[in-house]
């Protein structure tokens, strides 16, 4: 059986992009009253891309939101299913901030602090030992007073990867552990893995849920440090105390200028074959990448999206108009 013609855009994918896509979808429906509001599924980048790559036609989704670029093997799977022409669109950046309960004082953290606090094994006297640190004060006096507790994204989240790359690996280097580890472990891959391995004794808590859960955990444990998206933090400033990273305050400005180190780009992918076929798809994409939505003054920016620099946004629009595929 074949379904009747679909009259709204279907979007699926990353839960990080979801809030932005929702705002766009809603505003889109208001601005273009003859189109229905797009349906935006949540379910993770992987799931979204999988649905996206399952084929072409009304039975499949039109847009996949992603908090990471599509992978090579995924692109191949896409092709194998007939999804040939895919347009990649970068919508902006997601800032990642570190915050504790608002009852704490001002915090300044360096990647190496977090590395020391959270690494599974650290180098002590030239030997790799299980992480001995118990209290924040053992590491950095500005951090919350009390036992170390950190709520970091679970390994299902793309954010975790950024965290390991930009904080753990960086901190490992800053702390001078990289070389020490290399001296101990010959295998380069394993050595790199040691740097980013997070301790598993209950001090670092993986969060597979969303930031709401992290917030609740911090509310229940005042000495805990949590990882949040910038947007989420902006909405809960009264409950959270954000830390500076390498002395940079996280904000849309510092992130878009690249000063703040921890951020990642956000994307969505469009099936070219569906453009002009699914009513409203083309308009939706154009609306999404217009400055009204992703510009520095836009509702998305207000919500917490870090807008891409002007020229990047212009390039995205140009590429889309030109029908540039991957």
């Amino acid at each position, binding site marked *: 059986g074949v*379904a009747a013609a679909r009259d709204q855009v279907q979007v699926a994918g990353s*839960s990080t992009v979801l809030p932005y896509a929702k705002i766009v979808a809603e505003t889109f429906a208001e601005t273009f009253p003859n189109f229905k*509001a797009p349906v935006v599924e949540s*379910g993770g980048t992987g799931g979204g891309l999988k649905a996206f790559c399952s084929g072409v036609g009304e039975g499949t989704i039109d847009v996949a939101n992603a908090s990471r670029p599509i992978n090579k093997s995924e692109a191949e799977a896409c092709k194998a299913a007939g999804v040939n022409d895919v347009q990649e669109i970068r919508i902006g950046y997601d800032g990642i901030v570190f915050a504790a309960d608002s009852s704490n004082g001002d915090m300044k953290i360096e990647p190496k602090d977090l590395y020391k606090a959270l690494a599974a094994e650290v180098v002590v006297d030239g030997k790799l030992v299980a992480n001995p640190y118990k209290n924040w004060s053992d590491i950095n006096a500005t951090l919350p007073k009390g036992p170390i507790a950190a709520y970091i994204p679970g390994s299902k989240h793309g954010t975790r990867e950024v965290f390991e790359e930009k904080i753990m690996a960086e901190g490992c280097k800053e702390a001078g552990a990289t070389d020490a580890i290399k001296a101990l472990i010959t295998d380069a891959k394993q050595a790199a893995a040691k740097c980013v391995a997070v301790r598993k004794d209950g001090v670092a808590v993986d969060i597979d849920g969303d930031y709401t859960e992290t917030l609740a955990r911090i509310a229940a444990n005042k000495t805990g440090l949590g990882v949040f998206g910038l947007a989420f933090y902006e909405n809960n400033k009264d409950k959270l105390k954000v830390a500076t990273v390498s002395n940079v305050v996280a904000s849309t400005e510092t992130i878009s200028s690249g000063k703040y180190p921890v951020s990642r780009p956000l994307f969505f992918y469009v099936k070219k074959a569906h453009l002009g076929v699914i009513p409203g798809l083309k308009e939706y994409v154009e609306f999404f990448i217009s400055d009204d939505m992703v510009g520095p003054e836009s509702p998305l920016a207000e919500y917490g999206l870090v807008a891409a620099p002007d020229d990047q946004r212009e390039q995205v629009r140009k590429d889309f108009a030109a029908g540039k595929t991957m």
Partner: protein
Amino acid sequence: MTDVVSSPAGVLAKPARRDIGIKRRYAAERRFRAYGIAALSFGLLFLALLLWSVVSKGYTAFQQTMITVPVEFSEQIIDKDNERATDPQKLLTANYPLIARNAVAKALGVAEGDRAGLRAVNQMISDAVRGQLRDMVVANPQIVGTTQTVSLLAAGDVDSAFKGQIDLTVTENNRKVSDQQVGWMNQLAEAGALGKHFNTGIFVNGNSSRPEAAGVGVALIGSFYMMLIVLVLALPIGVAASIYLEEFAPKNKFTDLIEVNINNLAAVPSIVYGLLGLAVFINFMGLPRSASLVGGLVLTLMTLPTIIIATRAALKAVPPSIRAAALGLGASKMQTIFHHVLPLAMPGILTGTIIGLAHALGETAPLLLIGMVAFVANYPTTPMDPSTALPVQIYMWANEAERAFVERTSGAIIILLLFLIVMNVGAILLRRRFERRW
């Protein structure tokens, strides 16, 4: 006989007032009873606790802050060139938020040129006024050019602040509403222009990224469709399967396997049913994504084991003498079952249905993979249209960053529980009718 009486010497002879440990046994009896009361109270206590935690957080969601001001439907803004007769798009795409902003600004006495002030005012009203005012104008184009008193939705942050959910003692930078806005809010409230109204929106609106305009309307309909499908499919299929397995199937290794298999299906994580639904209903049968039809089918499969297990237990409990009586009268096996056994098993079947439906109503995971954990703003008209479900809405709202969603999450849970109660009342009344000791 005689040797019998004498042999187990005196065991049966009448003893003088025996000690049958009555005190101890009564203590045991009381203890047992106390365990029962304790268990029941424990369950009910936690129910109360849960309900309390939900209701105390959520009841405020049924009120919504509104700003009631005279709004001038300025022709200048809506339709400057008076083209609305020829171009209906004009009325649809006009800049309604501006009208609303001007109205509130006027009420607050903010000067026309005060750009920062106007922006702050704009932040106090919900973006949803665009739809609100547009609908008014489209319904009645005559009002263009007139001034009407309209209750405008206040922005979510103002709503939260007015309900006292934002800590106003923290520094201004660290909260979503500025001191100026709080001042205006209080000013309007004193003038009677800003106040709490019953929030019909939470029942009828579709989902929205703006908490003040968000509602569970779509989810309610989606859940309704799904429960209908589950009821219509799972109940008869489950009962039919149980009847076959319990009453007709030969008792052999194969039926043992089926029995075990059904028990096992109850242990399959619900998301796996989502995988199945994706593979079978969407990819193979070509049913649309995000449709409550598919959701209903998936939940049906998930609920079936529960109903089958409960029904089989209930069928087993019907005394064989009833079956013998009917068979002896010349009723066929089928008649015996449908006329006598099934009515007697009904309470158990209904319990299974109640629990199964309750489970299905609260389940999110299997809907993830079939596209129902989604942002859907438009009402579904048929079960083939995209929609969400109540638990999905709760799940999604629980993950929202805005403060105003916190109470709405609890509000949605309350609505879900009401839905559950409405759904189950019928079954519970029916069950009570069928219950009988014999």
